[in-house]
């Protein structure tokens, strides 16, 4: 069952990610990215991260992607035009991409612990209680600093979006 669930959600994630890279219309890319985020939330749940799975759905798929879709609608973004770069650059890029992926996979295979299979329910330390305890004891200072960061980001977004240049 664990293997089946992993394969279903991993293949969904990879398929949606490929679709995001290949689609030329931004709204199709945004919908594909929501698919990736939803299947990643299910994988977090299998790995024992209940709180993180919920936060992934609420923050990423809910808040951030709504912002993206809203901006796409606001700007009435259409299909992207052809690049000014020559086509040869694209055909050179694909082998470079495959090379990057194979180097990355080789490194992962080298360092990854292979012995232990992942089972649903083997790690239950990721519930909201455990995350909250850790967040408000050991990571209290970073947590408070993020509130300042978010405040600065809000102010920055307002200032940037209101600015009228000529």
């Amino acid at each position, binding site marked *: 069952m664990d293997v089946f669930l992993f394969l279903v959600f991993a293949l969904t994630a990879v398929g949606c990610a490929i679709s995001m890279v290949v689609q030329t219309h*931004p709204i199709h890319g945004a919908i594909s990215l929501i698919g990736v985020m939803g299947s990643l939330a299910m994988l977090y749940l299998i790995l024992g991260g209940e709180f993180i799975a919920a936060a992934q759905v609420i923050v990423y798929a809910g808040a951030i992607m709504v912002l993206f879709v809203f901006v796409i609608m606001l700007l009435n973004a259409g299909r992207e035009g052809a690049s000014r770069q020559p086509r040869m650059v694209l055909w050179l890029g694909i082998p470079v991409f495959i090379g990057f992926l194979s180097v990355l996979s080789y490194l992962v295979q080298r360092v990854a612990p292979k012995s232990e299979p992942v089972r649903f329910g083997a790690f239950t330390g990721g519930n909201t209680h455990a995350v909250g305890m850790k967040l408000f004891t050991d990571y209290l200072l970073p947590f408070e600093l993020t509130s300042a960061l978010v405040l600065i*980001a809000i102010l920055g977004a307002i200032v940037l979006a209101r600015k009228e*240049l000529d």
Partner: protein
Amino acid sequence: MSGGVPLSWYLMLSAVLFSLGVAGFFFRRNLITMFMSIELMLNAVNLSFVAFSYRFRQVDGHIFTFFVMVVAAAEASVGLAIILTVFKNRGSLQVDDVDSMKN
């Protein structure tokens, strides 16, 4: 009940998603799509954080994932505001058109 998948499969999935994010960032010419590719890379890194958190049976990886989410939200709001300003001034979302610092 059969055994689960090895942990390295999760890390491999994370590597594949990260590479696809890099490819999207380099191949696409639309500012919004490039920005979404960055979000895809962040998500891939989050997956490996959670996988290592499972491996070491510690919740610290989840905390880091949480912080990455907060930073991604802040980054998305500021980045989209920048994209709005670029569109207001250029009338285009093509990254090729934003080249006033070239030459």
